[in-house]
Each structure stands twice: as structure tokens, then as C-alpha cells.
């Protein structure tokens, strides 16, 4: 092999590795679904506590979360069918996603006495911010960074205001669902 050919081969390898390094699997619409469902839950919780709606409205919160779960299952199954490649970055991302939300669910259900009241929605905002920060840092994703900042800011502000539900709902809507919309637009 002559040096020019070696250089050509190295350039080819460099191009492929750079491209696959950027290939972080993101399904924006799932972020939108969960951002809206979480925001609806926070909002209804706040309205209930403020006495602005009747207790019967809790069903809306339950239905929105069930819709998000069902949508995620359908979307993941469809995605698996069309998936032609699983990058190492995508595998790590899926692992982090399961660890973050799995542990959050276990903490909330298993340690309910620690994470009752406003701590529960705050815990989910924290989990969402960890995931968006992970995407921002591992995938060098500016929209995820902005989303992560919005979520952390909403968490901090919510702890100082009298109506934290509105702030947490706004955070999930802008930071999480907003990031999902940005990811969808970027993919198109």
C-alpha cells in the first residue's frame, strides 16, 4: 500500500467514525408525549390543591399518563421494526433512560413516605433533567442542553413559589416536550 492510498483509507475511516459518533438515537415524539402528560399531571395536582377543580379531575391525569405509556409502547415496537442499526451511543442512551426512570419509579412507589406531596412531581422533573443533560453532553445536543436548563430552573423556582405545580408543568412542557419538538424538527 502506498502512502496516498493509506491516507485515503484513513480519511474514509475518519468520516465513518465521525458520522456514527453523532448517531444518538432520539425519538422526539416520545418526549412530547411524556412532557404533555407530566405537565397535565402537575397542573391538575396544583388545581386540585388550590381547590379550583373537583377531585374527579384526577382521572384526566391518570388517563394522560396511561396514554403516554401506550404511545411509548406502540412507538418503540414500531421503531424496532424499522431499526436497521443500533449504535453503541444509542444503546448507552437506552440504558441510561431505563436506569433514570426505573429508579425514579422505584423510589416514588417504594419510598412513598419520602417522596409524597410535591416531592413526587419534582422527582420526575429531576429525572427528566438528568436524561436531557445526558443527551446534551453525550450527543452534543444544544436543544437538550436548553431543555435540561429549563427543567433544572423550573425545579429551583418551583421550590420557592406558592404554586409549584404551575412552574413544574411549565418546565416539563417547555424543557421536555419542547426538546422533543426540536428533536423532531431537527430529524426532518
Amino acid at each position, binding site marked *: 500500500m502506498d*502512502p496516498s492510498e493509506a491516507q485515503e483509507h*484513513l480519511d474514509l475511516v475518519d468520516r*465513518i*467514525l465521525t458520522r*456514527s459518533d453523532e448517531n444518538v438515537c432520539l425519538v422526539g415524539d416520545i418526549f412530547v408525549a411524556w412532557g404533555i402528560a407530566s405537565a397535565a399531571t402537575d397542573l391538575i395536582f396544583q388545581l386540585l390543591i388550590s381547590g379550583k377543580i373537583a377531585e374527579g379531575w384526577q382521572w384526566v391525569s391518570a388517563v394522560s399518563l396511561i396514554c403516554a405509556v401506550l404511545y411509548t409502547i406502540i412507538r418503540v415496537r414500531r421503531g424496532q421494526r424499522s*431499526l*436497521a*442499526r*443500533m*449504535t453503541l451511543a444509542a444503546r448507552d442512551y437506552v440504558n441510561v433512560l431505563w436506569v433514570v426512570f426505573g429508579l425514579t419509579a422505584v423510589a416514588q412507589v417504594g419510598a412513598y413516605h419520602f417522596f409524597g406531596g410535591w416531592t413526587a412531581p419534582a422527582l420526575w422533573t429531576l429525572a427528566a433533567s438528568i436524561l436531557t443533560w445526558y443527551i446534551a453532553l453525550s450527543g452534543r445536543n444544544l436543544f437538550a442542553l436548553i431543555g435540561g436548563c429549563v427543567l433544572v430552573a423550573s425545579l429551583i423556582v418551583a421550590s420557592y413559589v406558592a404554586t409549584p405545580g404551575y412552574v413544574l408543568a411549565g418546565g416539563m412542557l417547555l424543557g421536555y416536550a419542547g426538546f422533543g419538538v426540536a428533536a423532531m424538527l431537527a430529524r426532518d
Partner: protein
Amino acid sequence: MDELLLSKIRLSVVAELLGSEWVAFSALVRAAETTNGNLGAHIAKLVAAGYVDEEKTFVDRRPQTRFRLTARGRDAFVAHVGQMQALLKGTS
């Protein structure tokens, strides 16, 4: 240098697999910009050498062939790239 990786197509297949858990044959055809038959022949050599593992599966009742890089393939790729870099350093 590694004789198997002197082919541009085989080198690009190994590089594609390096950053992935697995890649379907159809995705490799697109990435390597070649025909099914040509790529199939090149991958068969990589599989025979133990550089690449082949996995046949069904997705939505359709057969899908996936490939993943073995530890041997990874080592061979790293050594080959190192030798190419050394060649360039030696001439500069």
C-alpha cells in the same frame, strides 16, 4: 498490514460496525454504497476470518441479517489503522 482490510469496502464495513452494537445488512449496503452481491461476498470473508459475527433474525415476519464486530475484528482494525498511520509518519 492486514490483507483482509486492504479492501476499501471491507475496511468501511468494519469501521461502520465499530461504533455500533449491530448493523443490518441493508444499512451496510447503503453505507458502503455497493450492491447486495458485492457486499455479501466481502462480508463472507470477514465472517470466515472471525472478524464479524452474523446473526439471522425475523423482524415483522421478514428475515433480517445483522452483523456485529468481534473482539478479533476490533483488534485487527486497530492494528491495521495503526500501521497505516505509521506508514504515513514514516513518509512525512
